[in-house]
């Protein structure tokens, strides 16, 4: 990152981050972030930014939001000690259970928050994009809860590999719009949603699902997801008797990771984001954006992206639809650049193995996305024995059954006498 941030600036930026002074007025996290959008979208983003500025800090919004989180989402989510995993890894493992949140992942924290905002902004309908389908389900549910019509853009490839979530969205009254353009996954779905937004910027609220995109989304999503880290901090102190030595979260766009990390930035905790290592280190073989990407502009913000030398965005590969994205939130780009968070990758195989281990040792079927965090946390624990680690369990794995059935568990018993 030396090309982007001079080392003299690095310390200053870190301090600004820790002080909560980022993003700045222009939506920048140091050099990252900003707002790279068509002029057609400028009024929409300005309206949104103004809405965020007005409502997000308001007591009335925060009250409504807290109540929905508590009464409907089921927060606080549990913090689980994992005795058998701890024994196996030779460390003390704690798990923040976003899988227990309504609809099965952290995505709902953001979805219900933005849906409340949409309502306050007088939107007539909500559009959203989805990759793994978790954000689509969360958006559909949040919109149903608040009585807002909802359309979800979803890549044709993802529609196929996340079939259970497509059905759930339909049930929740949302329209699922199959995106056949581009890479037919999350990236194309975001583009399509943005295009739709242009058609009626005043009537539509675009409910973006991760800490990516143009300002104010990375900020808005971080604020809404920070409940994860806030709760974790309090629960670790109370249940574990102290903060963890290290905290791990998987990173797709980076919303669950920023939600967990942000409230822990000032603590002496090693923070590690785990991306999708896919099937290899080559371009196009993974979705390890921060680990292998370069700076560029994608879908509205300047961040680290996976691209070729001509600036064309690279298609990605990952067994987990929710990590299968060529970009990453700009705040993560800065956290990496200033050295506060380390970003690594776990491969498809490692994730699958970790998923299986967690299932069999703790009876928790985690999402394929989340499994990446476990895979690396295990490696780290072997190198750093007898510590206390916290893992952000961003979602449950029910939605991944169609994918998982292609990888039968190695320990599967055979049915029959």
């Amino acid at each position: 990152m030396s090309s982007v941030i001079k080392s003299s600036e690095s310390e200053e930026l870190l301090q600004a981050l820790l002080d909560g002074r980022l993003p700045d007025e222009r939506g920048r996290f140091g050099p990252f972030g900003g707002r790279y959008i068509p002029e057609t979208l400028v009024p929409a983003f300005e309206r949104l930014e103004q809405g965020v500025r007005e409502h997000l800090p308001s007591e009335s919004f925060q009250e409504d939001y807290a109540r929905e989180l508590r009464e409907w989402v089921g927060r606080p989510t549990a913090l689980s000690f994992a005795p058998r995993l701890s024994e196996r890894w030779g460390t003390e493992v704690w798990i923040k259970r976003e899988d227990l949140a309504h609809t099965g992942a952290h995505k709902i924290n953001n979805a219900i928050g933005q849906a409340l905002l949409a309502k306050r902004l007088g939107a007539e309908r909500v559009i959203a994009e989805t990759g793994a389908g978790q954000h689509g389900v969360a958006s559909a549910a949040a919109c149903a809860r608040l009585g807002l019509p909802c359309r979800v853009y979803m890549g044709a490839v993802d529609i196929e590999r996340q079939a259970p979530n497509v059905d759930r969205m339909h049930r929740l009254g949302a329209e699922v719009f199959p995106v056949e353009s581009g890479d037919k996954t999350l990236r194309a779905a975001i583009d399509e949603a943005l295009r739709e937004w242009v058609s009626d910027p005043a009537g539509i609220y675009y409910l973006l699902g991760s800490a990516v995109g143009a300002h104010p989304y990375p900020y808005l999503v971080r604020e809404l997801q920070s409940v994860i880290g806030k709760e974790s901090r309090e629960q670790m102190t109370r249940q574990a008797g102290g903060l963890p030595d290290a905290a791990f979260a998987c990173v797709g766009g980076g919303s669950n990771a920023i939600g967990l990390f942000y409230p822990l930035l000032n603590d002496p905790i090693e923070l590690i984001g785990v991306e999708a290592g896919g099937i290899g280190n080559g371009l196009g073989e993974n979705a390890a954006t921060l680990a292998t990407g370069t700076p560029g502009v994608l879908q509205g913000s300047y961040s680290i992206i996976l691209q070729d030398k001509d600036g064309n965005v690279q298609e990605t590969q990952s067994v987990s639809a929710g990590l299968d994205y060529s970009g990453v939130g700009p705040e993560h780009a800065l956290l990496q650049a200033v050295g506060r968070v380390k970003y690594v990758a776990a491969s498809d195989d490692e994730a699958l193995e970790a998923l299986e281990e967690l299932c069999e040792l703790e009876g928790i079927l985690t999402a394929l996305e989340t499994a990446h965090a476990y895979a690396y946390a295990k490696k780290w624990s072997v190198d750093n024995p007898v510590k206390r680690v916290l893992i952000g369990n961003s979602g449950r794995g029910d939605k991944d059954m169609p994918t998982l059935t292609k990888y039968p568990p190695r320990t599967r018993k055979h049915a029959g006498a």
Partner: protein
Amino acid sequence: MLAHEKISAAIRDANADGRTALVPFVTAGYPQPDEFMATLESIAGIGDVVEIGVPFSDPMADGMTIQRSSFAAIENGVTLRWIFEQLDGNHIDTPLLMMSYLNPLLAFGYEKLAERARETGVCGFIVPDLPYEESADLRAALEAQGLGLVQLVTPATPAGRRKMLAEASRGFVYAVTITGITGGDDGLPADLAGYLDAVTAASPIPVCAGFGIRAADDVRNVGRHAAGAIVGSALVEVLERGENPAEFLQSLTLAAR
């Protein structure tokens, strides 16, 4: 005359000639890379300014037609570097504009970009995902070579901002005629005249209308209130169907009178 002034001048010349300036758009290297220069030259023979689309993997502001052409061009190896190589030593008089998303320009490097553009007769740029607020660096680099950055305004742009953008724009002001994406065939909005008149009034340079201009009638309609008409998706569709782009453009010039 600075490069971007050539654009304005070409449009004004057409108007002086009693015509609406015609600004055809073509995705570079589409449908076949080896036909690119021939196509470009034939289009430049009719258009007053020609827009060259740099294909990008993530054309978020474009409709299906241009998306398709963009992906096809990438598949065929078309890159910004390649485009400049093709343009090297060209003898086209018509001012050229490049339309590109920001990331390929970033990857190329702003300084080198401006240099190569000046060398190859490219007089300015349209960058659909670069709003004015984020454009200072690129503008500076372009201006150093006399090149222009075309700003877009839309029907939803408030008056104050419209004025600011019109004044910041170089070459012409790109007046988006519909609030959708390129390539829609919903026709043109009802209050088109008022809108275009307002942009024109705010603008020290010519105003060209674009998005959704598909037929002679559309050119005639916008021509009454704008200096030029930009024809994008409709022309790409002609190329897609393997038809003759010059013939199609010729049919529009009749309307441009």
